[in-house]
């Protein structure tokens, strides 16, 4: 079922940023940095996406450390598989785009 999912930009970047455990605000900062400031996740959007991805088991919530109330998240094996499929889809998009428009864009 999960094989042919097209991820939204937000989902893609959130999953990428969770290669390492991060909390909510850390994800927002990392995504902004990865995209050179272009993608700014709003908190409500991120919260909804995180809950949906935990439900689908693409990511997990790590046990809360003592003395901290911030919840950390990390990508799962299933999440990694989704990300790999998406990466090859994106490569196909880029390949086709370059093949057809390649000459023109390099003028």
């Amino acid at each position: 079922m999960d094989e042919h999912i097209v991820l939204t930009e937000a989902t893609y970047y959130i999953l990428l940023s969770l290669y390492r455990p991060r909390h909510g605000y850390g994800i927002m900062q990392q995504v902004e940095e990865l995209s050179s400031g272009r993608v700014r996740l709003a908190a409500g959007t991120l919260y909804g996406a995180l809950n949906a991805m935990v439900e689908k088991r693409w990511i997990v919530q790590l046990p809360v450390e003592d003395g901290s109330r911030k919840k950390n998240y990390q990508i799962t094996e299933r999440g990694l598989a989704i990300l790999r499929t998406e990466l090859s889809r994106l490569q196909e998009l880029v390949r086709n785009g370059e093949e057809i428009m390649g000459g023109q864009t390099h003028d």
Partner: protein
Amino acid sequence: MTERITKTRWFWAWEYEKEERWLNEMAADGWTLAEVGYCRFTFERSEPNAYTIRLEMHPHDEQYLSFMEDTGAEYIGRCLQWVYFRRRSELGAFDLFSDLDSKLTHLRKIHKTILIVGILNLFAGMLNLFVGLESTSVYRMNNACVAVLNLLVCTFLMYGLGRLKEKIDSLERERLLRE
């Protein structure tokens, strides 16, 4: 003590963007929202434009509030299903939703809530109307009056549902082309 003022205003649920605009105009004038109640808004004196205000329909959810606070937002309060946040403008642009999907989810949530309230009102209105017309009780006029109120509220809610549906449809059309 910080100077405070309280204003009374009524906004229908589908006018939440208008409400948000008004709250941000107040903030621009140096009055930042500090407390909310039923139709009551309390503002405190602050630097003009010191804060951005946002509101959202969101059920009671402690986790969400602490999540928001981690991102630098301050929880102002809640009124029925609506939560109010503010964040210092110097921290950058403050929005609750950054893509069409989450905006659509939010609008559909509002639509659904109004629909349920509308159906309950319609049901109560029919029941009151029936009692008002058919019963022999001395209080039946009360039922008839409440029935009229119920059905009036229903009409307003129907109008609101229409407005929301327009917004949802236009975002959905856009969603066909972009995220």
